[in-house]
């Protein structure tokens, strides 16, 4: 487990990354015009970890993932993967080992389930490897196997979320980024999604960074958690330390902002 201090200590003063982290964001700032999305955010994810990113609406949680994927206007800072700076072109990032499962599922509803999954592994030229990955993902999500020829539009929200995660796994990522995977799902499906995310983390040993609103659910399965508020990291630690402090209550009720103003 690492803390913000560890990250700071790992930097050499020139914004360089610590190669011991699999994924590292150093002093990332994102501006949407005059609005500051992220303000000098630094965080790190180690190999095999499941890291949660939490915070109230507008805190910059999804922006963290978008900054990694080259989908947000980054005005400062660097993203490192295995100590090397990422090529920020969006279409290059998956080839470097990061797959993104966007908020709202965003599966291709006019493609079949199998076609959706195959969309996840363009950069894999070996056909046998593509088939192996497809088989492995269908094993992980048996419901997708039974409906593989159906159009994604015919699936329920929960099944579409499984498909979106499966499509991300087809890329064979070193790091899987999940943006609010339980958004808009029924409680019983939410439980299923968290179980599946935990299984991917523990059984496949895939490193996962997940932005999530369902605090209880994500803290139950996460190794570490970052709490964001107004584009800055308000706290980072283990789920236990997050629960022990009042940080979540404070940021959700706006107490942190009031203190800053005082």
């Amino acid at each position, binding site marked *: 487990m690492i803390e913000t201090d560890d990250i700071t200590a790992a930097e050499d003063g020139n914004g360089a990354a610590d190669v011991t982290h699999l994924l590292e964001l150093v002093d990332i700032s994102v501006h949407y015009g005059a609005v500051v999305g992220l303000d000098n955010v630094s965080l790190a994810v180690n190999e095999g970890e499941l890291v949660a990113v939490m915070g109230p609406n507008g805190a910059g949680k999804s922006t963290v993932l978008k900054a990694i994927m080259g*989908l947000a206007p980054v005005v400062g800072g660097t993203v490192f993967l295995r100590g090397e700076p990422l090529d920020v072109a*969006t*279409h290059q*990032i*998956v080839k470097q080992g990061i797959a993104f499962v966007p908020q709202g599922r965003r599966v291709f509803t*006019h493609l079949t389930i199998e076609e959706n999954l195959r*969309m996840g592994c363009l950069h894999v030229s070996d056909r046998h490897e593509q088939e192996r990955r497809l088989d492995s993902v269908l094993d992980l999500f048996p419901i997708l196997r039974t409906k593989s020829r159906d159009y994604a539009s015919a699936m329920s929200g929960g099944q579409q979320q499984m498909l979106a995660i499966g499509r991300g796994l087809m*890329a064979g990522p070193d790091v899987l980024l999940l943006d609010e995977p339980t958004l808009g799902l029924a409680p019983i499906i939410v439980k299923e999604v968290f179980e599946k995310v935990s299984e991917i983390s523990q059984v496949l040993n895939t490193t996962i960074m997940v932005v999530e609103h369902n605090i209880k659910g994500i803290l139950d399965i996460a190794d570490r958690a970052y709490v964001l508020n107004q584009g800055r990291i308000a706290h980072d630690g283990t789920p236990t330390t997050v629960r022990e402090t009042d940080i979540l209550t404070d940021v959700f009720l706006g107490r942190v902002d009031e203190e800053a103003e005082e």
Partner: protein
Amino acid sequence: MNSSSATTSPSVLERGLHTLREKGDLELYANVFIIGIAVIFTLWQGTGFAITLATVFCIWAILSVSLNLVVGYTGLLSVGHIGFFGIGAYGMAILTSDTSYELLRTEAIPQFGWPFFAALPACVLAAGVVALGVGAVFNRFRDDIYVLVSFGFAIIAFNVFLSWRALTRGAFGIHDVQRPSIGGWQLTGDIEFLILCVVFLLIAVGISWFLVSSSFGRVLKAIREDEQVAQVFGYQTTYYKLAIWVISAMMAGLAGGLFGSFTKFVDPNSFILLESMLLVSIVILGGLASIRGSLLGALAFVLLEEGMRFLPFLPDEFIGQARQVVLGVLLVLLMLFRPQGLAGRYKL
């Protein structure tokens, strides 16, 4: 009679409209109806009419299939496709011109004297090269702005055809465009030309079908639905969009080359913006992302265009306008009750 049940139960009309919206049978009915009309016209007007009808259908079918690759499968609503059709037609007229034809002309244009089968690939290539340049700029835009810039391209193309008189003879147009010949065999007859058009239509449909059925086509459909997610998974969408745009323009250039040779006369009025809008209407009428739909839409359009000439109660001077009115009404009805078109899967 129970008044409440009379007001709550759906009327015959409502049930009929519901069937139109929900059932896939409409495509079958439309096929039977449109092909039936074509057969009736053929029996009524004779073989000569049928050959003309079939030739015009082939040309418009190539054009509508090509546009559907861009509008239907990729989701780029281009209203400028007629420009590439014009490039093909003018390419054929200019490249095949020679001195014997020049005697009939009032204004000189360059004399190339190419044979048809050398000019046709050049037309296709010219449309492709122009599309490459235009597409590189268009790729910066999306949605409404894309419609506007393609609208601009149609206007520019028309004005080039009209104003570059040294090459196009402007409003006079170019007469006596060549029909094809292979060695000593002159394909000047209408039936030979029809066979040629059918062959090219089959090639265009075959290429289109292959493209949309391949992984390339899968990416196009993904771009149509969510371009950003396609990028996230490593697809450089600008290249895919540019590639299908160029391929589509080349097919339109092919249709244009055939059109120029078929009509033997090319002038700017064949490539006005209205023609481009009619072409978009054919694609929507037939159905987005459906090659079969484009063929059906083209046949319906050609029947409408050629068939209305024979309506006894319609004065000649109103035929052109009446065609557009009928097509307009059809489109409004489709958008209301069948927004995916006759055979399509996507709504506009």
